[in-house]
């Protein structure tokens, strides 16, 4: 029996450990290493240490590209937050039954192919797409608008695909919010705006950070959204990285971008950790019992 216990434990832990080490830890380590190497036309990467890739990231030309792509992701994140917060609040205030229905309706897009949904947006935005047709028909415009292949289209597409990822964490932190605190704040003279500003927002900070994390980071990588909706001009970071890897074959440079994204992930996770600490417990002066 002891032997069998050992074997089961060994099998289950061994399997997952080796998988994660081999295909998660080791690859990420390689990315970091690669980012500090030099490009080689034949072997892709030469074993020559260099911080050239990072230096180039801060090159003016790339900074511009970087900023343009980051801007779209940031705007999309912000738009998702603005749209998603009232949405999550409204859902959280519904009856349990309706909450379940709304959550189900939000889960469905998560399970459906995002490429197909991006394509659906492309279809809507085109010169002869439904939006233009509608606007022409109703006489608001007399010439079709150039909706497709704009920054706006990319941002819209990102919002469309990623909105549920913003709403879920927001909803879960709003749902956890103790409504008795509202009662207490009202009792102490806070009106609805003060309650929102001083209670709701601070206490849902973890949800806000988590939502932003789950929208902002993936949004940078969704190259197909930029491809389908942004055309050749409006690139996301993912397009830049993809070009570096698959077309230009500049691995160290692409890896540097990837490392920067992981650092961003780390920073946002740290923020999330701080936010959770802020709302739950500690903070203030620890053990200041004088």
């Amino acid at each position, binding site marked *: 029996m002891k032997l069998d216990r050992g074997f089961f434990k060994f099998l289950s*832990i061994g399997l997952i450990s080796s998988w994660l080490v081999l295909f998660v830890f080791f690859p990420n380590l390689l990315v970091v290493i690669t980012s500090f190497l030099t490009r080689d036309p034949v072997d892709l990467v030469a074993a020559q240490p260099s911080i050239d890739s990072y230096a180039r990231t801060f090159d003016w030309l790339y900074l511009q590209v970087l900023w343009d792509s980051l801007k779209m992701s940031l705007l999309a994140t912000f738009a998702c937050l603005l749209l998603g917060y009232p949405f999550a609040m409204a859902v959280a205030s519904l009856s349990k039954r309706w909450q379940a229905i709304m959550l189900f309706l939000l889960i469905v897009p998560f399970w459906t192919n995002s490429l197909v949904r991006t394509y659906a947006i492309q279809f809507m935005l085109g010169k002869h797409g439904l939006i233009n047709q509608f606007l022409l028909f109703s006489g608001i415009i007399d010439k079709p608008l150039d909706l497709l292949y704009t920054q706006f289209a990319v941002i819209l597409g990102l919002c469309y695909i990623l909105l549920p990822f913003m709403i879920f964490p927001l909803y879960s932190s709003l749902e956890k919010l103790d409504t008795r605190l509202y009662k207490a704040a009202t009792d102490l003279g806070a009106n609805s705006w003060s309650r929102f500003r001083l209670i709701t927002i601070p206490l849902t900070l973890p949800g806000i950070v988590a939502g932003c994390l789950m929208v902002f980071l993936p949004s940078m990588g969704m190259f197909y959204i930029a491809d389908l909706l942004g055309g050749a001009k409006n690139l996301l970071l993912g397009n830049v990285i993809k070009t570096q890897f698959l077309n230009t074959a500049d*691995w160290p440079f692409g890896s540097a971008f990837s490392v920067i994204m992981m650092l961003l992930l780390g920073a946002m996770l740290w923020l999330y950790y701080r936010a959770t600490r802020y709302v739950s417990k500690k903070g203030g002066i620890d053990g200041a019992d004088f």
Partner: protein
Amino acid sequence: MARISKALYLTILMLLLYVPIFILVVNSFNASKYGIKWTGFSTKWYEKLVQNDALIQAALNSLTVSIIAATMATVIGTLAAVALYRYDFKGKKFLSGMVFVSMLTPDIVMAIALLIVFITLGISLGFISLLIAHITFCLPFVIIAVYARLNDFDKRMILAARDLGASEWRIFRLVILPLILPAVVSGWLLSFTLSLDDVIVSAFVTGPGYEILPLKVYSMVKVGVSPEVNAISTILLVVSLLIVIASQLIVRKDKTL
């Protein structure tokens, strides 16, 4: 008043989420080639799909990868969740940290990392590399789903089973597995759709010799709007919808029991 505006807001946003999909589906039955005007009901784009051998092959490839990847991810992920739940061992924190990070890692970062590792290890890009990549990004979802389920039940049950003389394997098969089965099944379903829908990772780690459906659709879409894409998209949507409904039913039914 506040109630009405709330309901209105929810409705509008939901409509915005669903209308594009709906129009896409409707248009896949539009006889018109350009999908601008409705020129009559037709299933000809679906008929064309069936005749597109390359697309059919890509779809079969995708199904193969997704089924195997989902199954492997579910087996490894379930064992991992049980191990993380039951045992204390060195490096447990590190392991669960990796699970967490790999779930949050943006697809593109994972894609790059895997591409580099495949090249370094000399794994040729194609079926095997795709499979490994898909298992890797499905794993954390299975682990977390199963772990959450395990956390729901009383740990003393396992102690009781051991007290009654059950072997480790039997505890797993007779006590743990039946209890976590709903989570395992929905983990499989989620893995399957994640795998079937993936574009970003696959674009990096597949080779020219092994075409899969999302990438095929991607290249078709990039070229421009074609009614065939509407048809294949509709099929993918319906498949996803069936799967998500199945998964929800499993969870729901499990809750009422």
